[in-house]
């Protein structure tokens, strides 16, 4: 039996395997090596040994359903096609930790002043105001709304800043989206985080921007994402246990962790096993 897990949350869903460009190439998914290529007409193929896997191309990425029987369609991403947005692929970066912890980090604001000082937050503006979290019954996706956090202004010369508004969305255990104020007063920028699960304790983090921004260059936008990622990576790779505990009392949330608490409960309710730690005695 191929693949390092039999968890249907992984085998029966669409898992990202990297960009739709840059083919042919090999990549790793659930402990196996896949060979990716396209036909002359652009049809994508994903091979595990001699076996053809179910694959589709969406949003500039290839997505594989390892078990061949997808339980649901791939999530909607309307911002990808929206006129006026620029789509910037920030590349795929490896992280040695369970992808569940990477998603949880992406959903968290409380770490901004400590891990991303002068960029996304600044001591003493550390308070996380109450926000709203719901699971959309129709899509089974998690939405966190009314999130706001104090963010420094671009100039580091003065202690000035303002509240930035955020929304978060979790589409799959390993895919999430963040929406924040853009250059246009009535629209939100979108940042997609799509994690490729290499195994229980390793992912490749693919980041895609769908921004209203006619000023910054691609290089500037990508460099900023990489700076933020480079600050998160040593934290992510230093969890004392790499897999996320869904049971037991080893880890204690606080009020500001509402999205994370909801995420862990949502994972428990779907019987998530991949990337999780068994409870200690």
């Amino acid at each position, binding site marked *: 039996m191929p693949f390092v897990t039999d968890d249907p949350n992984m085998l029966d869903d669409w898992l990202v395997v990297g960009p739709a460009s840059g083919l042919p190439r090999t990549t790793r998914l659930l402990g196996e090596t896949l060979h990716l290529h396209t036909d002359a007409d652009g049809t994508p193929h994903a091979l595990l040994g001699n076996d053809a896997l179910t694959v589709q191309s969406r949003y500039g990425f290839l997505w594989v359903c390892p078990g061949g029987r997808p339980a649901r369609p791939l999530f909607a991403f309307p911002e990808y096609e929206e006129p006026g947005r620029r789509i910037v692929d920030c590349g795929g970066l490896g992280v040695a930790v369970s992808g569940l912890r990477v998603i949880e980090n992406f959903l968290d604001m409380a770490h901004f002043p400590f891990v991303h000082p002068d960029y996304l937050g600044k001591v003493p503006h550390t308070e996380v105001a109450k926000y709203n979290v719901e699971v959309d019954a129709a899509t089974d996706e998690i939405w966190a709304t009314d999130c706001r956090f104090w963010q420094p202004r671009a100039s580091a010369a003065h202690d000035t800043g303002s509240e930035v508004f955020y929304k978060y969305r979790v589409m799959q255990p390993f895919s999430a989206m963040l929406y924040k104020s853009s250059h246009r007063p009535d629209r939100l920028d979108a940042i997609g985080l799509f994690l490729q699960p290499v195994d229980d304790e390793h992912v490749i983090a693919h980041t895609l921007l769908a921004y209203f921004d006619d000023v910054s260059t691609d290089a500037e936008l990508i460099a900023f994402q990489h700076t933020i990622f480079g600050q998160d990576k040593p934290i992510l790779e*230093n969890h004392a246990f790499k897999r996320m505990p869904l049971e037991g009392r080893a880890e204690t949330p606080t009020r500001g962790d509402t999205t994370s608490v909801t995420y862990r409960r949502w994972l428990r309710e779907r019987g998530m096993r991949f990337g999780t730690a068994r409870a200690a005695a």
Partner: protein
Amino acid sequence: MNPSAISQAWHPVAPSAEVRAGANIVAGFAQGQELALWRAADGSPQAWENRCPHRSVRFTLGQVTGGDRLACAYHGWQYEAGSGACVRIPAHPAMPAPRNVCAKTFATADAAGMLWVRLAAGGAEAPPELADAVPAGWHLARTLTLRVAASEVRAALAPHGFASTETPDAWQGTLGESTVAALLLDAQPQLSFLHLWTDAAPGSDAMARVHRAARQLRSDIEAAASH
């Protein structure tokens, strides 16, 4: 040693001078337990499980703050020296800290120039023999890292001319031409530390010979273990 003696053992996790008051946090190991070693501003030694109880990020990435607190690098949660109790959660500055959130702490003792840690939750205080583990006035040559189990090191020390002493896992012998006190730390299943103290003067030729002989000792022990 019998199992209860091992769990009651005092482990020499670091030279005392390496862990500076109110300054740094040093990674320690004892029998597979990862530790965060630090001192409050008053010098009191702290050995905590290297894991913040919030999201399990290692305390060693954090910093000592306010003289007597350790702040986690992830969300800045602060824990006080001594009890290990969480005293501040920056995401909720007005909220009193939750009573049930606590770093796991271990008993510590400074003796003979080393910081010792006891893993057993309740137990005897540091025995007086610890103070005799290293003669007064000696210098730390180095801490040797060996990628073998502590049992392999114990078995190898006698054939290399070391004799055991009153202090558990403290040995005396010769390296180069200098007398050496070797304190063994069982760090992880395939990782041992040997703290080598000597009367050779730092920077001297004698000390250089101690270092050469120490590297040879490690090569011999690791080679023997791999067969």
